[in-house]
């Protein structure tokens, strides 16, 4: 053959000649054979993008999966600790109680002690105890008076606590020692004037015992708190002073009626893992109380611990629901991400994997080729992610919850969650790899691993997802409150998937259609061509859509949870700052506050009485300033706005009758007795001598009753000095009442012909002798039958005001009042308030005034919650209230509510108030209360999920970059081909930017919308405020700014990532043809 003679050589001559030879020599040509590394190692070293991407994504997947349980555990832990670590003696103590017969203290004390010791004994057998050493003491039922024989001025009264023997518990006396003998006493260190060594005479009422003070204890430390008042442990009959402490002998010597208390106090805040033990201990103590010793002394066991744990548990459950929503979806998203990136990687490497099959590699070797590198990457990433999750959780917990809150990376839930994420990632990896790993070899050789259209399987899966989404969303919307991690938890992710899948299909169709039309520009042609050739890159947009949806949903939930707690605080405090003030009796409170803030926008007077129940819980506000000053929103009532509410609570009334002078005179005529309808003259007799005509006027210092004597024709004049109205008084009412102690009924008819004072002649006040300026006053006679009443009429001859004053039962007041005051008192009633309707009065209910007298109220509206009194009580206008009830007899506390203002402005207002005699006693700020409410587990959990959502968002962005990185080779070749075709680098860069940015950017926009939609669908069912009593109507409206910030921020971040990625890609493409 001619060829043989022509071309035979010993070796191929490398192109490039001598220089190429030299280059080869530098690279080791002819040197010793290269050491062959494991295939996966070479792969990682030579093309790190794939492995690095998988490590990163796997790390983020495990990170998001462990963050949620770690943070949730910490939140629950701190919630439990705060609930159980508040004080030495509170609801969490286990207390056994038994009555003590005088002189037999030790018997009962021994029985109560054995009950609480039963828990301690159980722990002695089984390990460390949650409880402090049990402490026992008896306490007298009443006070014992003590006096120092050396100085009779040193005296006082207190209850007496008897030690069990002389067991002082852990009390270390401030000085001296614990009492051991019968005639020894230990006193609280808060008592002044008594020192160790002093003698005290203890007077129990039946005997006087002399005792020596042998020590003083601190009633605020350790068991000193218990000895200061054992009964305080069960919150019954709490003494106001700290107890004197004696030994059991001394206690028996005093022969006191008492109770014995045995207390078991938590040694510290409970840990979550200790809850079951604590409940078991309570059950043990309860069982012991029912045992022999307990039964003999009729020992009763009291503890609020199960209730506290139940409340904490409910909070914890709700917090778990909130955290689970985000965590589950973040985890699903992480798997999705890993699967997507692996799928892309698999398509890129399918030819390489096929090469192993083409060479007939064994199954094991082939599996090693396919899975070693990605599985190693996923595992390494998982370990790194777990560690990072731990570190991040520790940092977040430390900064948000405090350094003492434990982070438990080895807790089974955390480990299981991490394992689940890791296993899920590996499964996703395998599932996503398999299809590309088994592509028929002939297809691989034809280089058609990348599908040109979305597969049928994808259509089926996506359709199934869409169907499931719709079903679940319908269930979520219709099932009401989410009480557990049910299907509805997946709503945000499902909505995003639904939106994303629909958008994906539409986009694929649009791209396909656009490629068949004449292109508008070269750039659009190139972008559409790329997307049309690899429509699966659009799936990345779905990924971004889900991530952003989760983040926007979590953001909205966190913002709403925070807002709900702030709203709770707004209702609870009533204003930005609520100042408790003292007001001198001669200072008109409302006027003083108005004078301190003439504009009416910064300060408002309020009276609050919260110690009662139902309508007895009263808040009276200066209604005209409520809208401007109060943090409570009138929109929370069914009256809607502040002006309407103010008009309803303080309707415009008639003119007030103001009398000025030092004496008042009233001319009466036609005075006669009368018989009420339904009575006969024989049955109902009135002795006018038993009736007193009275005028009640309101001066600055309160109401004054002016007794004008028995009714008679002629002029009735006040007794000198009983009409203190030199500066003017408002007439509250005029009428008659029984003047005898037996308060007989009466019926009286009279005509007021004139009214005058020593400074106001009758002519000046003549206009008031008219029926149209007065009304029948209800006063405190809220009996619907109105046994005491008045009838008004003008005499036809114009001689005066004819009155009929009747009290059918006596003890009442038949009176009239000027029209300046509405009656019944208009009141806004909290919806949770039990009310008694007042028959005969439209919308009338029986209420209580701040002087605790019954008052008729007219319900003008209802509110879900009222300021300061919460879900139970009434709100009235303070000005109206002060005209209807005597402010001087008010039991309510005075408060000045301040609108948000600077510290300097607040100081100015306080100074103004002070100048008017109104002194600030205490202050409560909205910010402080809101901070406290924000510590609820649900709010903390919803905030903690922001960290998880942020990690999920980061995951999607990282995945976007990873998808770009692992499929860079194909684009590099494309880029070179396009560059060869004469397309400028600038245009190529713009095309690459558009191609990389547009799909995920669309995903961001869709994700924000999907998150918002999911929020609107699910938020009514989320347990954002649990166990907080009645709260303001939840404002669940979405917040625009966080959404906008999230969307714009993510787009900016995405643009940055894409910009850097395309620049690097362009640089790499320009440099060389790199390995895949």
């Amino acid at each position: 053959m001619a060829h043989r003679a022509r071309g035979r050589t010993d070796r191929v001559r490398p192109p490039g000649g001598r220089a190429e030879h030299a280059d080869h020599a530098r690279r080791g040509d002819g040197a010793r054979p290269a050491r062959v590394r494991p295939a996966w190692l070479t792969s990682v070293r030579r093309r790190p993008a794939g492995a690095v991407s998988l490590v990163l994504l796997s790390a983020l997947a495990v990170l998001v999966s462990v963050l949620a349980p770690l943070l949730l555990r910490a939140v629950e832990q701190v919630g439990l600790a705060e609930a159980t670590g508040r004080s030495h003696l509170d609801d969490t103590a286990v207390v056994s109680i038994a009555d003590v017969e005088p002189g037999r203290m030790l018997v009962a004390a021994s029985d109560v002690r054995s009950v609480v010791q039963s828990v301690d004994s159980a722990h002695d057998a089984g390990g460390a105890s949650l409880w402090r050493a049990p402490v026992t003491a008896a306490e007298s039922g009443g006070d014992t008076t003590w006096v120092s024989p050396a100085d009779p001025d040193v005296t006082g009264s207190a209850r007496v606590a008897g030690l069990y023997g002389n067991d002082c518990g852990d009390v270390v006396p401030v000085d001296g020692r614990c009492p051991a003998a019968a005639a020894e006493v230990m006193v609280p260190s808060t008592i002044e004037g008594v020192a160790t060594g002093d003698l005290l005479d203890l007077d129990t009422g039946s005997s006087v015992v002399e005792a020596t003070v042998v020590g003083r204890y601190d009633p605020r430390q350790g068991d000193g708190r218990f000895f200061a008042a054992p009964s305080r442990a069960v919150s019954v009959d709490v003494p106001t002073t700290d107890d004197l402490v004696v030994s059991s002998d001394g206690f028996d010597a005093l022969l006191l009626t008492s109770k014995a208390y045995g207390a078991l106090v938590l040694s510290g805040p409970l840990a979550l893992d200790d809850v079951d033990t604590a409940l078991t201990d309570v059950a043990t103590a309860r069982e012991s109380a029912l045992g022999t010793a307990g039964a003999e002394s009729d020992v009763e066991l009291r503890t609020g611990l199960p209730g506290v744990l139940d409340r904490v548990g409910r909070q914890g459950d709700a917090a778990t629901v909130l955290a689970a929503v985000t965590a589950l979806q973040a985890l699903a998203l992480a798997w999705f991400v890993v699967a997507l990136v692996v799928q892309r990687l698999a398509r890129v490497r399918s030819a390489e994997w096929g090469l192993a099959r083409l060479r007939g590699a064994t199954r094991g070797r082939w599996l090693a080729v396919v899975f070693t590198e990605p599985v190693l990457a996923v595992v390494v990433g998982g370990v790194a992610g777990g560690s990072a999750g731990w570190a991040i959780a520790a940092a977040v917990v430390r900064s948000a919850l405090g350094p003492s809150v434990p982070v438990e990376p080895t807790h089974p839930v955390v480990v299981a969650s991490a394992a689940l994420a890791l296993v899920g990632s590996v499964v996703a990896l395998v599932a996503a790899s398999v299809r590309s790993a088994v592509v028929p070899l002939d297809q691989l050789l034809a280089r058609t691993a990348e599908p040109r259209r979305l597969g049928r399987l994808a259509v089926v899966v996506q359709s199934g997802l869409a169907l499931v989404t719709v079903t679940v969303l319908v269930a979520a919307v219709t099932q009401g409150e989410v009480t557990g991690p049910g299907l509805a938890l997946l709503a945000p992710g499902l909505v995003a998937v639904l939106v994303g899948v629909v958008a994906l299909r539409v986009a694929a169709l649009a791209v396909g259609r656009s490629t068949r039309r004449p292109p508008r520009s070269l750039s659009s042609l190139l972008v559409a061509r790329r997307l049309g050739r690899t429509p699966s890159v659009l799936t990345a947009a779905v990924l971004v859509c889900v991530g952003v949806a989760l983040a926007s949903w979590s953001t909205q939930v966190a913002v709403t949870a925070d807002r709900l707690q702030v709203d709770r605080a707004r209702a609870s405090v009533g204003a930005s700052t609520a100042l408790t003030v003292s007001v001198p009796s001669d200072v008109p409170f409302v006027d003083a506050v108005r004078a301190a803030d003439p504009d009416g926008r910064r300060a408002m007077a309020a009276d609050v009485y919260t110690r009662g129940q139902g309508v007895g819980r009263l808040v009276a506000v200066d209604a005209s300033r409520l809208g401007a000053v109060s943090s409570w929103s009138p929109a929370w009532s069914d009256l809607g706005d502040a002006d309407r509410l103010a008009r309803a609570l303080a309707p415009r009334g008639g003119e007030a009758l103001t009398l000025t002078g030092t004496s008042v005179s009233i001319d009466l005529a036609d005075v006669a007795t009368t018989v009420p309808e339904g009575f006969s003259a024989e049955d109902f007799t009135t002795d006018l001598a038993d009736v007193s005509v009275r005028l009640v006027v309101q001066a600055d210092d309160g109401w004054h009753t002016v007794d004008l004597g028995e009714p008679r024709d002629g002029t009735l004049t006040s007794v000198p000095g009983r009409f203190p109205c030199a500066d003017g008084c408002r007439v509250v009412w005029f009428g008659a009442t029984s003047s005898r102690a037996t308060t007989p009924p009466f019926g009286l008819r009279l005509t007021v012909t004139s009214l005058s004072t020593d400074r106001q002649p009758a002519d000046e006040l003549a206009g008031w002798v008219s029926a149209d300026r007065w009304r029948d006053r209800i006063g405190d006679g809220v009996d619907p039958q109105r046994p005491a009443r008045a009838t008004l009429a003008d005499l036809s001859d114009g001689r005066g005001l004819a009155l009929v004053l009747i009290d059918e039962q006596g003890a009442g007041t038949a009176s009239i009042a000027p029209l300046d005051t509405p009656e019944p008192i208009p009141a806004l009633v909290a919806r949770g308030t039990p009310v008694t309707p007042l028959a005969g009065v439209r919308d009338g209910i029986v209420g209580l005034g701040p002087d605790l007298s019954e008052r008729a109220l007219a319900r003008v509206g209802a509110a879900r919650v009222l300021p300061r009194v919460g879900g139970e009580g009434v709100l009235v206008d303070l000005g109206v209230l002060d005209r209807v009830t005597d402010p001087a007899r008010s039991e309510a506390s005075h408060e000045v509510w301040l609108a948000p203002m600077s510290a300097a402005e607040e100081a100015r207002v306080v100074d103004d108030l002070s100048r008017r005699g109104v002194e600030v006693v205490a202050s409560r700020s909205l910010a402080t209360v809101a901070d406290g409410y924000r510590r609820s587990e649900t709010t903390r959990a919803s905030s903690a999920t922001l960290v998880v959502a942020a990690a999920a968002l980061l995951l999607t962005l990282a995945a976007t970059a990873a998808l770009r990185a692992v499929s860079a080779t194909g684009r590099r070749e494309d880029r070179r081909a396009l560059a060869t075709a004469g397309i400028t680098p600038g245009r190529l860069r713009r095309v690459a930017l558009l191609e990389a940015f547009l799909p995920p950017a669309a995903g961001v926009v869709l994700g924000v919308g999907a998150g918002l939609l999911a929020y609107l669908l699910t938020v009514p069912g989320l347990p954002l405020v649990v166990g907080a009593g009645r709260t303001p109507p939840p404002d669940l409206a979405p917040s625009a700014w966080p959404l906008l910030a999230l969307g714009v921020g993510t787009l900016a971040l995405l643009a940055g990532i894409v910009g850097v990625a395309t620049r690097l890609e362009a640089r790499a493409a320009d440099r060389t043809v790199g390995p895949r």
Partner: protein
Amino acid sequence: MSDLALFCQGLVHVYREAGTDVAALRGVDLVVPAAQRVAVLGPSGSGKSTLLSIVAGVTRPSAGRAEVFGTDLATARPADVRRLRRGTLGLMMQGAPANLLAHEDAAGNLDRAVGGSREAVRVGRRVLRAGGVLGDRRPVGRLTPTEQQVVALAVALAPRPRLLLADEPTSRLGETARDALLDLLVDTADAAGTAVLVVTHDDAVAARMQRMVHLRDGRVGEEATAEGRWSVLGTDGSLQLPQGLRTDWPDGALVSVDEVAPGELRVRRVTDDEGGVRG
């Protein structure tokens, strides 16, 4: 085991494209003895690559027999095909990506292909050395096309296959490089007693083989050796004209076939005048 490296009889392959059945092979008969070098030539679409794909065990034939050293690829189990590819067949498919790991260097590719066999590595290294790429640590993706083909050849020959299948092994090379690579191929194959089946468009490549087989329309049309060129009688009795006549004798031309002597036929094109039967 048979001494025949390849035995194809009535090999048919039909595939479906755009809803239509396309017959890529229409009854190929081909026998390649052990250690023989055979070039398969033919125009695009004649079935060369399909034949190679079937012999490589990548594609299963629709009908007929395709035995590689006695293993019928039409009926072989996947494990048998894998074993055949692992030890008997050497594959050098068209283009470097189909044969090599682009991120690995030459030695790495060799190692991945042969596993731990020292002898195989020695053979492969010999090819690499001859090709001037031994010790080159660059990923093969960054090598020149010639160097890539050298590595691909080394990888294919290293396991000392009994039948080397090569699809256009020199398609991207210049003349010099092509010849050098062919030298390598021929020398190594001869030294190892490897049969070679090369698919090519290039007559120069074919000339380096001991035998040339021309495929046309899915059939073996003619064969050539140093001794001469022959048309091949198909299993259906059809006979293809020598390539040189095809341009002169158009499709549909009438011919007369007469036996002029025992074992000798005369084929004569009928002129238009003689072909009055067509009207």
